[in-house]
């Protein structure tokens, strides 16, 4: 213990206190370029105000009996422990929405990873029309959900184009009002919409895979599939981790699609999402405390799944 506290001020302490040392002290306090604090301050304040504070407030609300009151009014908001959490978890609609996210992720994540990697690999070759293809892949990503939902509603309505093409094979009840198909359809919609962004991520990652690895693989007689399996997939593993985590976050954020595409999570709650239930309980029905508890559970879920996934994908 005592040996660890060797005084650093051995010879230095005999020096007169100079301006340099004072500046040194200031530098330890504020950093070498304290102007950086001023530059970064607006962003730091922003993060504190719309991220850190609301996050804390969400947790606080979830442990209290919280309701909306007129601005300025002081009302008692007693601590209620886990009451909001038990209320949320015993609500069948909440449980259904979490199951729905599960269904969503089981469909969306593998499709997203598979198709974006496949299309990115294809696009990574020297082919004509690459720019056109690249743009056409990310057009859905940059377009508002509300706009593309409108056309999907039209395509998948009961006598829409999809059912017309399928003819006698069309599902009955139709896609959006079918309790088994509604959630998978949302998962397909989101996969389609987000894929372009993930293709861009994979394209960036593919540039980091050394070309020599492909050369030596083909020298060893590896075919296309083998070099995809043994060179590409391990080479883009960090990107895969990121793609999976971002897909999970997208799934946890789901709101516009069930709200508009299946008209409020229908039929009968078969396609609700946790955020939709948060909106209904918290803002429509005035129970922000229960809604906050749902939100906290959701974030814990996202963090746990992301962590497990990171561990699984990065293990060698």
């Amino acid at each position: 213990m005592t040996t660890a506290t060797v005084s650093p001020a051995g010879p230095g302490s005999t020096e007169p206190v100079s301006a340099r040392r004072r500046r040194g002290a200031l530098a330890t306090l504020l950093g070498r370029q304290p102007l950086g604090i001023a530059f970064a301050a607006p962003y730091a304040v922003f993060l504190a105000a719309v991220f850190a504070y609301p996050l804390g407030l969400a947790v606080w609300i979830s442990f209290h009996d919280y309701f909306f009151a007129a601005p300025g009014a002081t009302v008692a908001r007693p601590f209620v422990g886990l009451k909001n959490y038990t209320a949320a978890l015993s609500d069948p609609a909440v449980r259904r929405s979490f199951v729905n996210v599960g269904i969503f992720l089981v469909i969306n994540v593998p499709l997203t990873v598979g198709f974006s990697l496949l299309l990115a690999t294809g696009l990574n070759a020297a082919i004509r029309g690459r720019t056109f293809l690249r743009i056409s892949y990310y057009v859905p990503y940059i377009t508002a959900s509300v706009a593309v939902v409108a056309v999907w509603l039209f395509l998948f309505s009961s006598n829409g184009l999809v059912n017309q093409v399928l003819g006698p094979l069309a599902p009955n009840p139709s896609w959006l009002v079918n309790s088994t198909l509604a959630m998978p359809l949302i998962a397909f919609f989101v996969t389609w919409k987000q894929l372009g962004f993930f293709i861009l991520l994979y394209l960036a990652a593919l540039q980091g895979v050394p070309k020599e690895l492909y050369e030596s693989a083909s020298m060893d007689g590896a075919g296309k599939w083998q070099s995809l399996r043994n060179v590409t997939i391990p080479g883009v593993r960090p990107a895969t981790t990121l793609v999976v985590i971002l897909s999970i976050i997208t799934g946890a954020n789901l709101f516009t699609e069930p709200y508009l595409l299946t008209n409020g999570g229908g039929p009968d709650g078969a396609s609700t999402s946790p955020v939709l239930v948060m909106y209904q309980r918290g803002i429509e029905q005035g129970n922000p405390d229960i809604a906050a508890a749902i939100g906290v559970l959701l974030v814990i879920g996202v963090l746990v799944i992301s962590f497990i996934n990171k561990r699984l994908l990065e293990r060698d």
Partner: protein
Amino acid sequence: MAQAVSTSPAVDTEPRPVEHHRQERSWPRLVMLILGAVVFLFPFYYMLISSVQAKSDTSLKGVFPTGGFTLSNYTAIDKRVDLVRSLINSGIFTGGVILCTVVFGVLAGYALARLHFRGGGTLFATMLLVQVVPFQLLIIPLYVMIVRSYGLSDSYLGMILPFAINSTAVFIFRQFFLQLPEDLFAAARIDGAGELRILWSIALPLVRPAVLTAVLLTFIGPWNEFLWPFLITKDTSLQPLAVSLANYISNVAARAANPYGAALAGACVLAAPAVALFVVFQKHFRASDIGSGVKG
């Protein structure tokens, strides 16, 4: 997320193709790529074509209409939703976010990349963390704060505030500033230039492509955002197009004469600016710019 930090983006270089298949022309690959393009583009084609048809024809023949083109759906949607007003609202919302992101984001990105100051590490870590916490989760506390405590419902400020500085854009700025050679800054400092001057007249002109990329990336968020403006605007004259169109779809569409036609016309108006912007500036929205982090 940790990998996202390791590499810096290459400015304006088209991703170099991997040349291992270069000799053979691969038909399966070409078929796959074109099939992909059709799957991505068809709904947009169908959206446009159906928006200019008087009556919606959902049969296969309706995919390639030969006549009956009309703009009546556009006038129909404009009667229910004030398109110009809504577009202006979308523009103010998006413009406000882009302005704040560029001004404060560049400052923060520069500080994070080039200046040593207390709290820099914490700020950087927080910036990365922000990107993994779902925004939607914060709607309840943000609603409580912005609508109930500050009384900012039905205002542009309330709409802009939660999105004001896009963290991904800050990250991009930082990456680009980090790439510039240190000598440049050392020389300018010896010449007695202040940091603000270095940033404005030396660093910023060099990272202009990054600013464009960040603006494009930031644009997508507020222009397409539905939930937040939907929550805080009851006044229809303040609603961005995404919100007023969604309200039309969920409330009015079912009772309209050509319900889908008008909704699709609105969808075209909402989609057009974003698509046009990204086609014109596609050079600045590339793998190397966006996915800066993942090569790692």
